[in-house]
């Protein structure tokens, strides 16, 4: 069993803060320094990465799994993992099913994909509408709890009643939203209510693989640490009311059911903020949406305890991240946008603090661009590969990713009469560094629609973002003045309009539409650009 903790170096309510998330397991402690990142998944996998690539990426320490794609089956398949021989609900069944390493990865579980902003049918008093490949499903709080108990992620996101309908929400809708969110949190924390009735299909399913279990009742009733979405959308009043409701002393039957908790907030390990619904419900102004969102977050957090981690989803740029660190004190950021940039063919290239100041720079390179056809440099200018040529080294830090600093495999598989003894080749020596993959090579892979391009770019982009956060923490350590100075410099050097990402995305969409004519294109147009599985599905299906 694991324990989750979060500590801050100093009790900062609003403003840059240094902290650390620690997940203690029997064998090892996983620590994530904050501000820091978590990786996103699609259908339970980090897009484009095979499991060995996930493991060699040092940037991937926390992954979030949106569970809705598993609701295609009832019961959801990952909930059956704990029933398999050799696994149990005490032994990280979700890690096992998805191939994450308990000693390296924290796995959190959310019902929805926080990047999906498609219109959805309204939620009900006792269900959230979720999206699966076979259409919209209803997910009830009691089912959610049973799935969480069966899967045992390290962290769970409580269900939240976030409307994905017309953004002009009435007072009544807002009230309902915060009441439901609080009630669903309560029901997630309530271990005394009866478990959900066994699923009718369970018997049949389980008999397939194991004979002695005939229900889906999890043996482990533990609820992992709960992260809670700060509800209230764009209404300061609703936000305040929601936070207040967390701090109210519990009373009556609810108090009894939730013992030993004295208020709902006692059952909350961290707070989340989903930007997708927030952004769609505030008006864009010349000062950017952040200037409107920041006060809303401040409202939510004003009275809540300081030393709980704050996790924000769906930021889109380093500038935005710096804003939420500086003005709010957000600790954790998902890396969805850098992973997406890899889909579009963008190799990120930015650093914090900025070492060189020479005019306005883009935050990355659109490697589709013909200018990279003959560019044999490493992916970033701000970072170098371990073996980059001498004259290029300066004082640049190394990008440890498998594209910039590949390392030869330490072992290989032998298949029969091909060992060094037979071939006469030297034994595999210890791993050695290899030259970087070049921009020209990835440019080529992108133009020939080779999936390897995206694998290398994801690994690189995650490493760049990870290095960015390391730089952020270093600057925070140096105090307020340095922070202000470096954030200012970053804004001067790196173009906040993100032209390179926009341009690459446009091009990617064109190419993608051209390649996915017919049925797939029609599916795509329904999903605009936010569909979780859209990107890759097309790539795989039409490539013959």
């Amino acid at each position, binding site marked *: 069993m694991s324990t989750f903790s979060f500590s801050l170096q100093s009790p900062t309510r609003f403003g840059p803060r240094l902290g650390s998330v620690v997940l203690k397991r029997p064998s090892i402690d996983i620590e994530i320094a904050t501000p820091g990142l978590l990786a996103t998944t699609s259908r339970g996998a980090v897009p484009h990465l095979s499991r060995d690539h996930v493991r060699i990426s040092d940037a991937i320490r926390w992954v979030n799994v949106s569970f809705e794609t598993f609701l295609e089956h009832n019961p959801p398949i990952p909930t*059956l993992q704990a029933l398999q021989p050799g696994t149990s609900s005490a032994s990280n069944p979700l890690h096992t099913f998805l191939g994450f390493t308990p000693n390296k990865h924290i796995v959190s579980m959310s019902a929805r994909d926080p990047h999906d902003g498609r219109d959805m049918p309204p939620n009900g008093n006792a269900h959230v509408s979720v999206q699966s490949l076979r259409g919209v499903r209803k997910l009830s709080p009691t089912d959610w709890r049973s799935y969480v108990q069966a899967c045992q992620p390290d962290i769970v996101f409580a269900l939240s009643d976030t409307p994905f309908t017309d953004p002009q929400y009435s007072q009544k809708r807002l009230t309902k939203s915060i009441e439901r969110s609080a009630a669903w949190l309560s029901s997630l924390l309530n271990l005394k209510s009866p478990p959900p009735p066994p699923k009718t299909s369970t018997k049949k399913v389980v008999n397939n*693989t194991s004979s002695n279990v005939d229900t889906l009742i999890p043996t482990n009733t533990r609820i992992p640490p709960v992260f809670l979405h700060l509800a209230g959308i764009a209404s300061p009043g609703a936000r305040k009311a929601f936070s207040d409701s967390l701090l109210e002393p519990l009373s009556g039957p609810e108090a009894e059911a939730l013992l030993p908790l004295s208020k709902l907030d006692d059952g909350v390990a961290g707070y989340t903020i989903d930007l997708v619904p927030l952004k769609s419900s505030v008006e864009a102004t010349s000062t950017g949406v952040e200037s409107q969102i920041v006060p809303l977050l401040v409202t939510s957090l004003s009275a809540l305890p300081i030393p709980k981690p704050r996790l924000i989803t769906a930021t889109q740029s380093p500038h935005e991240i710096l804003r939420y660190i500086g003005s709010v004190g957000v600790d954790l950021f998902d890396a969805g946008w850098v992973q997406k940039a890899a889909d579009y063919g963008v190799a990120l290239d930015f650093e914090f603090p900025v070492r060189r100041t020479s005019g306005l720079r883009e935050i990355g390179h659109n490697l589709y661009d013909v200018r990279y056809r003959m560019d044999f440099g490493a992916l970033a200018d701000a970072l170098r590969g371990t073996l980059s040529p001498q004259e290029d080294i300066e004082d640049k830090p190394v990008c440890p990713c498998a594209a910039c600093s590949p390392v030869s495999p330490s072992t*290989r598989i032998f298949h029969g009469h091909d060992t060094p003894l037979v071939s006469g080749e030297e034994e595999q020596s210890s791993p050695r560094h290899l030259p970087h993959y070049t921009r*020209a090579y990835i*440019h080529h892979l992108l133009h020939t629609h080779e999936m390897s391009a995206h694998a290398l770019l994801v690994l690189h982009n995650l490493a760049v973002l990870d290095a960015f956060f390391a730089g952020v923490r270093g600057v925070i350590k140096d105090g307020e003045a340095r922070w202000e100075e470096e954030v200012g410099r970053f804004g001067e050097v790196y173009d906040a309009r993100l032209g390179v990402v926009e341009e690459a995305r446009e091009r990617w969409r064109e190419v993608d539409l051209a390649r996915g004519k017919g049925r797939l294109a029609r599916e795509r147009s329904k999903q605009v650009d936010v569909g979780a599985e859209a990107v890759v599905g097309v790539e795989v299906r039409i490539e013959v």
Partner: protein
Amino acid sequence: MQFQVIAKCNTTRARVSRMTLAHGVTMLPTFMPVATQAAIKGLTANQMQALGVTLILNNTYHLNLRPGLEVLNQAGGAHKFQGWDRNLLTDSGGFQLVSLSKFTTITEEGALFASPFTGEPTMLTPEESISIQHIIGADIIMQLDDVVSSLTTGPRVEEAMNRSVRWLDRCIAQHEKSGTKSTQNLFAIVQGGLDSVLRDRCLDAMIARRNGVAGYAIGGLSGGEEKDVFWRVIKQCCDKLPEERPRYSMGIGFAEDLLVCVALGVDMADCVFPTRTARFGVALTHDGPLNLKLSKHAKEFQSIDESCPCPTCTDKTSRAMLHHIVTHETAGAHALTLHNVVFQAQVMGRAREAIIAGTFPDYLKQFFARYFGDAGYPEWCVNALRSVGVDLLEGTPAAKIVSGNGAKWEYAAINPQ
């Protein structure tokens, strides 16, 4: 090239050899995964090395278009460009010219085609094919041959065969004066269609040129011909080709084809099938292919093959998880590609072991019994192996035999769910 036969099967024509090239040793027989565009689908060069692959194939036609020779030259060749420091083979580009472009016409000078970029008429001569392959820098390069479909009949087959011999002379001449002979090795391609007389004449002519070639490919097959004809041509070529040269059967990738070819004396084969079928959700196993898209796999928690040494299986990736992601996530394709590449290598590796141990006929019987099971043996395999002294039906006279080209696998049933 150093080519050394180190063991021969006492029954069949199978053999184990050590082929030493500029980028290391490759033990034969071997299967070569195809990296058409300088990447094995979705994987990196390091991953391929970790899988124990020592020889892959790039396609000249594709690399010549993209990234183009200017880039490859600047990069220092295809090895460096793709980060692959083991052995590499390139084809001549001729096959793709004919199969991908309707407007290609063959003249004595070379293959005339419309440039895919500009539409301009462009000529690929044997000399040019070799020069392009010199720039790409593969360890094994192929002659430009005059390719006709294996279903073509009549005088065109003979013409193509004779021209392929003349083009071989031009390729040898071009290669001789290149100065890359110490690192690059030219293979001839035996043509002659399905006509044994033409094949024989081609074999004679090309064997006469043995001093100019490091190995022989058997071309002009795998174009939809009857399998029972296919194996006879392979056998005819293997029987006649010189012992001391590697033999390469082009475009062969199904496990049964590989093992029959090995038994007939083939040392090398390549095919896009294992990596392509992975992208459609099919995992190759010793019990036959598994189509993981089928909903029957949705609740199976076992791996594809518990005894498989690939990263996907040693990690115990469940069929259920694979079912969930194949054809939706590139990560699903990667997982199956890793597995399928290893499966092919295992089929060949076990063949090498068995040949060394003197048990290759047993290996064939066991493999076919398990792989085809109740589906029945393809009749052509039974015939082909009988021709080299192995009777798959020995001891199992009641075994089912399927005529035609063999069993229909799960991968044929491509309808998901």
